[in-house]
Structures are given as structure tokens and as C-alpha cells.
């Protein structure tokens, strides 16, 4: 009997073209877009450097400043004669305008505290970008002044010129094995994978509510068959679909994202642990879908409740915006989203090389969430009888 229950459910899923698009096309597109969009966040340099217009009069100090700015990984600077700021930003597409006195070095040397370097930008420039510009300019000027001082004092301090390269960062992995550097694709594949796995709600609720409304559930209940194989018959096919999603999204991260100019997905952890995590996420998503399907009267209601809930859980769970860019109180809220448990568990494996101990609590939370949702679904289904 169970074979035919599985067959029925798999046939229904394979014939639900809209659900297949939500389950496979949507996350694939999100992974591609977000991997490319977030590339700079994880990179040592910007693929597209920020354009800086330096407004000053030409002299050796200004030329050196511009040359040093251009040597940085983040900026492409140019000396510009005075123009309207609006025109430079909105027509000539400069990210920053830096207004600087051509005599800046002498004034600093004379300890002239009225000295200013003013920067202008459009409102959509992030504070982080301004901070990088500010630090770079301060570093260049400080190094120039110190260099002059060392030359005058006949101090050999050539090491100063390579000071920047001397400050390095090394990633420490939990399994002590050195791995590839983290990239945006390592964040976006698990994030959008978890998101799309929870969208299993669409086909589950469609099938389940149609069964309820067309009287199919009533007919099944009138047959001498217990509800357990029926519920299990719903869980297993969708579990298989979720696992196919995992495989396809990982393959997209490894092979398709690099074809579009992104980094290739490198998995730093154990595949068995990935399967454990994806199984727990799948159970949580399916059981939650069964619960939503049981509290909804129509497919429209289920799609609305489920869709909105999924998006809120995703926003809170660090799916849409990486958790590390959130302020602390938002990071604390993510602890209550099942999607966050799934994502953090996968990131432990994908990025940090974590082991079973590192993911055990995420597994526990997800399975607990699944059990509670399934119990509620079962109670509601039984209650429907009266």
C-alpha cells in the first residue's frame, strides 16, 4: 500500500509545475543573483572600484596622494577641476568627491589645526565605504609625513612601506584543516537552500487542502486505513524533493555560479553532516507545512499564511541579509527562527568546518520544531472528524 501512496504523491508533485518552479527555479535564481551581488562583501578587493574625484590644484603632494589612492584595492581616483558637486556625482557618476587644499602637507607639518579634508557623496554610499576612504587617506598622508621625517632623521624605515602587507588575517577552522577563503556563494547557497526548502509548503498545502475540500480525505477516512501511513506518505516524497533541492543547489553553487562570474562553492565540511542538517531542515519544513495546511481552509489562505510566515522567518533568520551585518538585537532575534537554525547549522559545515558537536543543537531545535508541528497537524486532522 505504502508504495502506491508514495507513487501518488510523487506523481502529484511532478505534475505541479508552479510548485516545481518555486522549489527549484526560485532558489537557483536567488543563489546566482545573491552570490554575485554580495561578492564584494566577502572579497579582499572591489571588482568595481569606487570612483573618487579629487578637487585641488596640481602639485607633487596631490599627484602622490592620487597615485597612492589608485594603488589601493578599493579606489580609482582622478584630479578634477572644480565643478558642480551634483554634476560630478549624478552625471559623471563619481562615488566620492574629496576636496583638499593643495598645501595640505605643509599645513600639517606646521601643526595647523584648521586644516580640513572634505568628502562628498550621494546618500546611498555606505558608512563602511566612507570609512575605508577616510582610513586610506589618513594612512597615505601619515605615511608620507613619516617618510619625510625618517629621511630627514636618516632613519632606515623601509619596512614602513610594506607595513600594510604585514598586517594579515588567517581564518581558523574548527577542524584545524586550512581551507579555501569564505565567499558570497558559501553564504547564499545554504541561505537560499533553507528558504526554498521551507517553500515545500506550497505543494503540500495545495495537495492537502484539495484533498480536504474535494472530500478525498473524507473518502480516505471512510476506508479502513490508519492516518499514520497517509501522513508518512506525505512526508517521504517531500523529503525526497527537499534532498533533490539540496543536491541541485549545491551543484549550482559549484558549477553554475562560477560560469556567471562568481566564486565556486567550496564545501569545507563533511557531506554526511550536510545530509543530517538537510534532513532536519526538511522535517521541520514539511511538518510546518502540514500544520499550515491543516489550519487553512483554502489553498489561497495556505499560500498567503505560509508565504508570509516563510518570508518573515527568512528575514529574521539571516536568509535575506547575512546575520553578521545585523545589529546585535536583530542577531538575538534570529535565534527564534527555524530558518536561522537551519542556516547556522549549514554554515557551520559549509564555512567553518564544524563537526557533529557544532550542529547538534541546531538539529535538536529543528527536530523539536518538526515534532511540535506534526503533533499539532495530527491533532487538527483528528479533530476535523468532529
Amino acid at each position, binding site marked *: 500500500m505504502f508504495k*502506491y501512496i508514495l*507513487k501518488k504523491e510523487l506523481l502529484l508533485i511532478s*505534475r505541479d509545475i508552479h510548485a516545481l518552479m518555486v522549489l527549484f527555479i526560485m532558489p537557483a535564481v536567488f543563489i546566482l543573483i545573491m552570490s554575485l551581488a554580495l561578492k564584494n562583501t566577502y572579497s579582499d578587493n572591489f571588482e568595481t572600484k569606487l570612483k573618487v574625484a579629487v578637487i585641488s590644484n596640481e602639485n607633487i603632494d596631490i599627484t602622490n596622494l592620487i597615485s597612492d589612492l589608485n594603488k589601493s584595492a578599493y579606489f580609482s581616483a582622478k584630479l578634477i577641476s572644480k565643478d558642480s558637486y551634483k554634476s560630478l556625482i549624478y552625471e559623471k557618476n563619481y562615488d566620492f568627491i574629496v576636496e583638499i587644499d593643495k598645501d595640505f602637507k605643509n599645513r600639517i607639518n606646521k601643526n595647523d589645526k584648521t586644516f580640513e579634508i572634505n568628502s562628498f557623496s550621494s546618500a546611498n554610499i555606505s558608512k563602511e565605504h566612507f570609512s575605508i576612504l577616510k582610513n586610506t587617506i589618513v594612512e597615505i598622508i601619515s605615511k608620507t609625513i613619516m617618510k619625510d621625517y625618517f629621511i630627514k632623521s636618516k632613519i632606515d624605515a623601509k619596512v614602513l612601506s610594506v607595513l600594510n602587507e604585514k598586517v594579515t588575517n588567517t581564518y581558523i577552522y574548527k577542524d584545524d584543516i586550512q581551507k579555501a577563503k569564505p565567499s558570497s556563494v558559501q553564504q547564499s547557497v545554504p541561505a537560499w537552500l533553507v528558504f526554498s526548502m521551507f517553500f515545500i509548503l506550497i505543494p503540500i498545502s495545495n495537495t492537502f487542502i*484539495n484533498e480536504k475540500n474535494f*472530500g478525498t480525505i473524507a473518502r480516505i477516512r471512510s476506508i*479502513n486505513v490508519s492516518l499514520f501511513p497517509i501522513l508518512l506518505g506525505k512526508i517521504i516524497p517531500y523529503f525526497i524533493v527537499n534532498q533533490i533541492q539540496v543536491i541541485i543547489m549545491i551543484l549550482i553553487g559549484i558549477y553554475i555560479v562560477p560560469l556567471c562570474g562568481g566564486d565556486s562553492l567550496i564545501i569545507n565540511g563533511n557531506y554526511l553532516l550536510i545530509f543530517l542538517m538537510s534532513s532536519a531542515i526538511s522535517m521541520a519544513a514539511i511538518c510546518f507545512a502540514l500544520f499550515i495546511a491543516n489550519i487553512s481552509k483554502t489553498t489561497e489562505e495556505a499560500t498567503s499564511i505560509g508565504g508570509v510566515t516563510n518570508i518573515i522567518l527568512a528575514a529574521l533568520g539571516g536568509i535575506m541579509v547575512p546575520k553578521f551585518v545585523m545589529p546585535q538585537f536583530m542577531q538575538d532575534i534570529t535565534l527564534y527562527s527555524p530558518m536561522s537554525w537551519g542556516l547556522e547549522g549549514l554554515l557551520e559545515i559549509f564555512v567553518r568546518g564544524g563537526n557533529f558537536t557544532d550542529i547538534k543543537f541546531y538539529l535538536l531545535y529543528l527536530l523539536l520544531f518538526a515534532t511540535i508541528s506534526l503533533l499539532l497537524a495530527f491533532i487538527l486532522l483528528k479533530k476535523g*472528524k468532529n
Partner: protein
Amino acid sequence: MSIIIKDLSKFYNKTPVLDNLSLKIKTGSVFGLLGPNGAGKTTLVSILNHLISKDSGSIEIYGYDFENQKNEIKKISSYIPQTYAFYPNLTSYENLEFFGALYGLKGKNLEKQISYCIQSTALEKFMNKRAFTYSGGVKRRLNIAIGLLNSPKIIYFDEPTVGIDPQSRKYILDVIKNINKTHDTTIIYTSHYMEEVEFLCDEIAVLDKGKILLQDKKDILMKKKSIIEIELQNETLEVDISNSYDIFINIISDLKVKNQTINSIKFPDKSLENIFLSLTKEGLRD
């Protein structure tokens, strides 16, 4: 008796939907359950199929105790709801295969039973087409085919001809009659269509406000339709005209010869619908 119901009651929010209802249905009969909307027909059928619970009363189906032998009862029963209770995205064959498996059929038995159901409802042409592409009539036939999978001893049809063309309706009624004849299956048939019940059923009950207003054999009910009442000054004569009108003409002539005054002559209602309306009153129902 296939079904014996004693003092069955069901309440929704303290309002009785079935009110101390008692009913006996003969094995192998086609039993028509008539009643306006909200009469309690679907509630009764749902209780008999263990879809909703009863509040009081006792039920016995084919000698099985309703409460303690639920599984035995389910094995011999089949419920064909008014809705298209199957999967529109599956073909007839796939639907029958799934429900057949739920009935515990497998292998050759399952295949044999599927082909019997397909033949009985003339679904051969539609076997491999997905159900959402079918017309209303074909969908109804598939609904019935699924109900035949477990070779039931008792089938509950809940308004199985709603919204279909006359040809399909005629075909479905013939199928039901045939099932009853060839397998001696007890049929419980709820409907709004009086002519269907007249055509199909051996016994008819009229249900309203959770109570049985009338239960009789169709022949007796039909006979009641063939009685002419002649009201005289001191008595009322009932004349059975089921065979011919001659007897009525003779009595009238006789009365004339005897010079007796006839106060009124009451001719019978022409259809079961009139009996139904007179019992349930003609007011609109929700």
C-alpha cells in the same frame, strides 16, 4: 437487515441535527433518503461512514456493532461523496490504483478489480487521461468506480448525479441499479431528484429536521398515489385505481343509482414530489 439504527441523535451547538432517529434498511435494497437542505441526510451518511461521531443511539451494520467493529464495517462499506473525491491531476487508472491499494488490494487482485471498475463505469477511453480534463459526467463515473473497488456490501451514494447531463445521469442510475441487481449490494441513495428515487429505490424515507417523517416501500407509496377519495355525507370511500379507472366509474354510477350525495372527490397527487412537499412543507430552506 443491513442497517438498524435506534434513537440516533447528533447535536451541533446544542441544536439537534438528528433527533432520536430510528431506521431499518433491508439487505440488498435500494434505499432512498429524501429530504430538503439541512434535513440531516449528509450528517446521517457521515455518521454511518464513521466520518463524524454520534452523540447517542445505537447502530448495527450487517450485524456488526458500530462502535466496536468499526474496521469490519469499513471493509464492507463504500462512501461515494457528492464532491469529486479523487485526484484531478492523476488519471483514472492512477486514482483507482491508489484507492485500491488503500483498500488493501495488491498485485493481480488490484489490476483485476481496477479493470472491473473501469468496465462497470465505462471509463476505458479515459483510463490514461488526467481526471481534470473530464466532463462532469465522466468525473461522476470515476467517483463511483472508486467506490466499487472493495466490492462493498453496502454503498452510500450522496447525491451522485448533481450537475450532470441527462444521458450521464441515466447511465449512472443504470450502473447503480446493475450493481444492486448483480451483487445484491445494499444502496443508500440520497438525492433531491424525486424521479431518480422513484426510478431507483425499493424503499424511501423522507427526512426533515433530523426526523424520519415517512418510511415505506416504494410500491406502497405509489399505491397511495393511486387512491381516489370520494367524500359522502357520512363516510369517505377510498378507490384504488392502480389497475384501471373502471372500478371508480362503476362506484360513481352506483352512487348515482342509490341517489347518494357526493360532497367531494379527491384525486391523488401525481408525483412523489407532492408527497415530499406536503410532508416537509413548501417553505424555502437555507
